């Protein structure tokens, strides 16, 4: 049970409010419960709870940030949860400038999405449920942000995973959507396994005493944990980031996750959940810095591969949400890659995370507005929409220019910081980032042009979206224009006085890098304009890319490779094994003998195939045999489970009484 004693460690001048930051995370939980239990009976089907709670959380977040704007210090407080031997687990909060910024980002975007969904999800048959999961998801993300220890972080992390699954598969009646949700869940799970082991490794490294992040950081800085151990832990933790932030090679789920409703894409797959992976690296940065040097290099390399690969894929997409999905991958990879370039890179990455959340949410919500109007995701069904949807058009263009990195919008300032840090860190990374910046500007322009310019190709009459959808767009558009200046050297970059690693350091402005970034952005836009200004039947890129077009369309065949090399063999052998077990055990002894004979003949067959067809088949058949053993666990017959249960009880009785 929760201990009554509250341990408060105030670092510096913690204002009174700061102690209660956890309320920000609690409010969405309450609203989720209210939505779940009373939502259907409330006028408006329960959306009001989530919106009210998020509005309150947003105001509180601004107040918390204000504390840091005034130069306040970090604050930590926690209560005991339970003790296992020497291990103390606590619940609580750790708030510093970074957390405050993240709280503002998450609550702003979530509030916008809550309001926006009023219009977008209007009339949906699971409207109330949608709002419940949305609130639950926000609460989980806020928990990750304020978590003082790794266990609390893990709880939020996993709740986000399940909420993401529920939201992607919100329209599960279509097989494609439920497949996408399963794919997202399992793929991120694959990253979560190393993540959990990373947590265990760190706890073990502390001598099983604590999972508190501050304590662990302190031990690493005091060299009580060796660089090698920290390296193992860091690379395992980074596995979680690869899964959650969709970095290569686990990036495959994010584009498919676009099957979910568009507000979900804006909230989860642009602004918050995928940001959790980046946030994790930044939060555990001491571990990464304290680890051997190859860890950060790996981080940079993974980021660089994803950055360039995803930007290339975004070039050829026809689905507007997929363009945005790949650009999200690419932008997240920017952050991850620059994280690997040193502490300055970490701060720059967080600045980009901060600005990116606003303009990417804006772009997704804008895309949702367009989709709402034309009832199609395909850009070939759009075109000329600027006349029909002026508000969406203007805000979308602002978001796009920010994404491309055009002065003076948010993306320009953060991208500039990233480039500067990369140049100081790894210069090869700098080159890749500039190339990616050109590509980003190109596909952004292509997307804007195909959607809003030219002539309208679709059916029906597009119309501007309702007020509930356009007002979040305007709010986010204004934020996109404004937030970039927070990190601008022109006004001494207040952002980096809140978010810093170790000590705040001055931001230096490198004119030629800023100029290079602008040239890259304008160059990409210009080339795209020249290529797309005339309307054509075929995408002009298709001819120019030649065979690469096909490779990009098939996403480098990575998804197909995963399906054929991993998923089908496991699935087929398991089902074969299940069937085999059913036939043998349940049909009794006679059939058992037959199955034995069959097993022998299977092995003969296996040998045959092995000799003839070589190692590939050997692997598959070996898996079939082991699948046959696994079948014991899954007959679906409850009584069989009970038999196993009682046999286990007898065995345990004998073991324990003997001992």
């Amino acid at each position: 049970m929760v201990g009554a004693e509250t341990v408060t460690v105030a670092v510096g001048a913690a204002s009174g409010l700061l102690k209660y930051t956890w309320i920000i995370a609690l409010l969405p939980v309450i609203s989720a419960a209210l939505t779940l239990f009373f939502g259907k009976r409330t006028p408006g089907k329960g959306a009001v709870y989530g919106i009210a709670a998020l509005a309150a959380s947003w105001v509180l977040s601004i107040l918390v940030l204000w504390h840091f704007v005034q130069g306040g210090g970090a604050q930590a407080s926690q209560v005991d949860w339970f003790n296992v031997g020497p291990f103390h687990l606590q619940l609580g909060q750790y708030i510093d400038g970074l957390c405050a910024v993240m709280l503002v980002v998450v609550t702003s975007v979530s509030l916008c999405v809550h309001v926006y969904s009023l219009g977008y999800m209007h009339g949906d048959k699971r409207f109330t449920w949608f709002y419940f999961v949305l609130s639950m998801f926000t609460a989980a993300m806020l928990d990750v942000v304020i978590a003082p220890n790794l266990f609390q972080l893990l709880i939020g992390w996993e709740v986000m995973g399940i909420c993401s699954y529920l939201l992607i598969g919100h329209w599960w009646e279509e097989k494609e959507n439920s497949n996408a949700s399963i794919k997202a869940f399992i793929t991120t799970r694959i990253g979560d396994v190393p993540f959990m082991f990373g947590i265990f490794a760190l706890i073990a490294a502390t001598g099983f005493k604590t999972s508190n992040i501050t304590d662990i950081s302190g031990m690493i800085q005091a060299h009580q944990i060796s660089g090698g151990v920290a390296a193992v832990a860091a690379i395992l933790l980074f596995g979680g980031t690869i899964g959650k932030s969709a970095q290569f090679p686990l990036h495959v789920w994010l584009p498919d996750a676009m099957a979910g409703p568009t507000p979900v894409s804006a909230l989860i797959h642009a602004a918050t959940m995928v940001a959790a992976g980046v946030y994790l690296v930044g939060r555990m940065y001491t571990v990464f810095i304290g680890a051997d040097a190859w860890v950060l290099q790996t981080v940079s390399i993974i980021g660089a591969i994803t950055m360039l690969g995803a930007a290339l894929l975004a070039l050829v997409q026809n689905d507007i949400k997929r363009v945005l999905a790949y650009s999200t991958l690419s932008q997240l990879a920017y952050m991850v890659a620059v994280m690997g370039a040193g502490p300055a890179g970490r701060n720059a990455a967080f600045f980009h995370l901060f600005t990116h959340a606003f303009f990417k949410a804006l772009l997704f919500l804008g895309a949702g507005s367009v989709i709402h109007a034309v009832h199609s995701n395909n850009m070939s069904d759009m075109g000329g929409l600027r006349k029909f949807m002026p508000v969406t058009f203007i805000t979308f263009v602002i978001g796009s220019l920010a994404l491309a990195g055009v002065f003076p919008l948010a993306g320009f300032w953060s991208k500039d910081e990233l480039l500067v840090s990369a140049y100081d860190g790894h210069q090869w990374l700098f080159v890749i980032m500039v190339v990616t910046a050109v590509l980003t500007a190109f596909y952004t322009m292509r997307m804007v042009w195909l959607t809003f310019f030219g002539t309208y190709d679709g059916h029906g009459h597009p119309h501007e979206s309702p007020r509930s959808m356009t007002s979040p767009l305007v709010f986010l558009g204004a934020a996109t224009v404004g937030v970039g200046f927070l990190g601008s050297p022109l006004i001494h970059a207040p952002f980096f006085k809140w978010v810093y690693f170790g000590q705040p350091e001055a931001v230096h402005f490198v004119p030629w890098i800023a100029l290079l970034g602008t040239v890259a952005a304008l160059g990409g836009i210009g080339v795209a304009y020249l290529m797309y200004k005339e309307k054509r039947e075929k995408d002009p890129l298709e001819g120019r890319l030649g065979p690469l077009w096909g490779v990009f369309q098939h996403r480098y065949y990575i998804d197909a490779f995963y399906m054929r090399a991993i998923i089908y063999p496991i699935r087929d052998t398991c089902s074969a094994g299940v069937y085999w077990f059913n036939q043998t055990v349940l049909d009794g002894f006679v059939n058992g003998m037959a199955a034995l004979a069959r097993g022998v003949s299977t092995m003969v067959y296996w040998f045959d195939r092995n000799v003839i067809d070589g190692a590939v088949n050997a692997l598959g058949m070996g898996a079939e045999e082991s699948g046959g053993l696994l079948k014991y666990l899954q007959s679906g017959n409850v009584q069989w489970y009970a038999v196993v249960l009682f046999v286990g009880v007898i065995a345990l009785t004998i073991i324990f009484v003997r001992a």
Partner: protein
Amino acid sequence: MTGQEYAFIVLAAVGSLSAIATVTARNVVHAALYLVVTLSSVGAVYLLLGAEFVAWVQILIYVGAIVILFLFGLMLTKAPIGRDSLDNQHPWVGGVVGFGVFAGLAWLIQDAFPFADSVASPGFRGSTQAVGQAIFHSYVLPFEAVSFLLLAALIGAVVLARKDDEP
């Protein structure tokens, strides 16, 4: 051996045999009636052990209410009659495991409370008054929890078994 022990052995034999009959009967209604015999003899064992309140509750609730519920359940689900449809295809597995459980328990009992060492303790009478005092003195909170559980079960059963009007 005291008279009480002889009485116990008779009751235990009746209870055990009808328990076997309950789980092997070919007719579902017969099985329910054998269950009545088992439950009643268990109730009588409670009386022998001096637990009179538990004994009467056993008769009232188990024999009076639960078995009736079972009979209703059998009636509502049109349970078939005949051994083949009552047991599954591998009764020997259940037999082996059931015997294994009994053997394990018997070994455990013999290990912990050797029969040879046991002595017949003097009589003990847990009067209804004592039970009431224990429940409403030491166990008030669990008692309330159980009453809440019963309420929840009542509502749950109604919700589950109710026919939905809308499809």
